[in-house]
């Protein structure tokens, strides 16, 4: 499974949306995720990959694709 698929799975579970409806261009707002959903999704992804996604970085994400790209970059850094 790719990082994108894994992150999609986590977001789907926390926000309660079908995985198939999550696209790279989609946003948390479109998924009707509230601030608690978003924090819990970020924390779940942090724990899955043992990375850090500080709020100051997360605020820069414009869509799900940005989120995934950040996670991919951080996991790559860890090797």
């Amino acid at each position: 499974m790719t990082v994108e698929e894994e992150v999609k799975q986590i977001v789907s579970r926390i926000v309660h949306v079908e995985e198939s409806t999550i696209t790279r261009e989609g946003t948390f707002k479109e998924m009707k995720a509230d601030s608690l959903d978003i924090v819990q999704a970020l924390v779940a992804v942090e724990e899955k990959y043992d990375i850090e996604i500080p709020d100051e970085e997360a605020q820069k994400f414009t869509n799900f694709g940005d989120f995934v790209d950040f996670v991919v970059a951080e996991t790559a850094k860890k090797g």
Partner: protein
Amino acid sequence: MVNPLQGKVALITGSGRGIGKATALRLASDGCDIVVNFFRRRDAAEQTAEEIRALGVRAEVVKANVGDPAKIEEMFQFVGEKFGYLDIFISNAASGVGRPVFDIDAKAWDWTMNINARALLLGAQQARPLMTGRGGKIVSISSLGSQFVWPTYTAVGVSKAALEALTRYLSIEMIPDGVSVNAVSASAVNTEALQFYIKEGYVKDMNATTPVGRMVTPEDVAEAVAFLCSEQAYMIRGQTIIVDGGTSVSLYPPVIEKGEA
């Protein structure tokens, strides 16, 4: 004058910003080494640590979600590894879901209760072996929402009521460990967290409705915390000290003549 807290170590949860940061700096100014804890904002925590070090004491930064028991354990392990003991534990980190009663689901309730109330229980349990025999102090940070009703504040208010009750129980059960436990409760404090309520229109000009004529600042709260951490407060146990400029004892604050701002 000798710094009263020289050689002591304090862990302050949620100390990157707001009341936690002001408390960290206040205790550091008395010579205390500080462990800064954060959850979501590393930049703010690192900035706080820099400001603490500039006061000539040691500062360490540890990330932990205090809503997660495993992370609390890791945070205290970090303190043990870095310092080997702990003198002061300030349970300050708070979060919450601002919703009317009928919109609060189990997830929002658990999130709020775990971070705001359970974290003191688990934190005190972890702090105990590091504090025993050192005359330790634990202070929890509450809010007037534990006693009074604010719009959408239900989950947080209830969690703060639990926090205050737990503070009373801990204060008695930790006497054999030589640890004092108290709480400081504040009305609306001028922090980033308050900005949410202002933005949502739930809080207006608190300067006008606070009897002393200005809002409570993080530094006002930090002063009360510092006093409870001093030996002068030895006989104060299990209390919730209210820092609110007179708000909670005043039914009609706007008609009261203001003190100096």
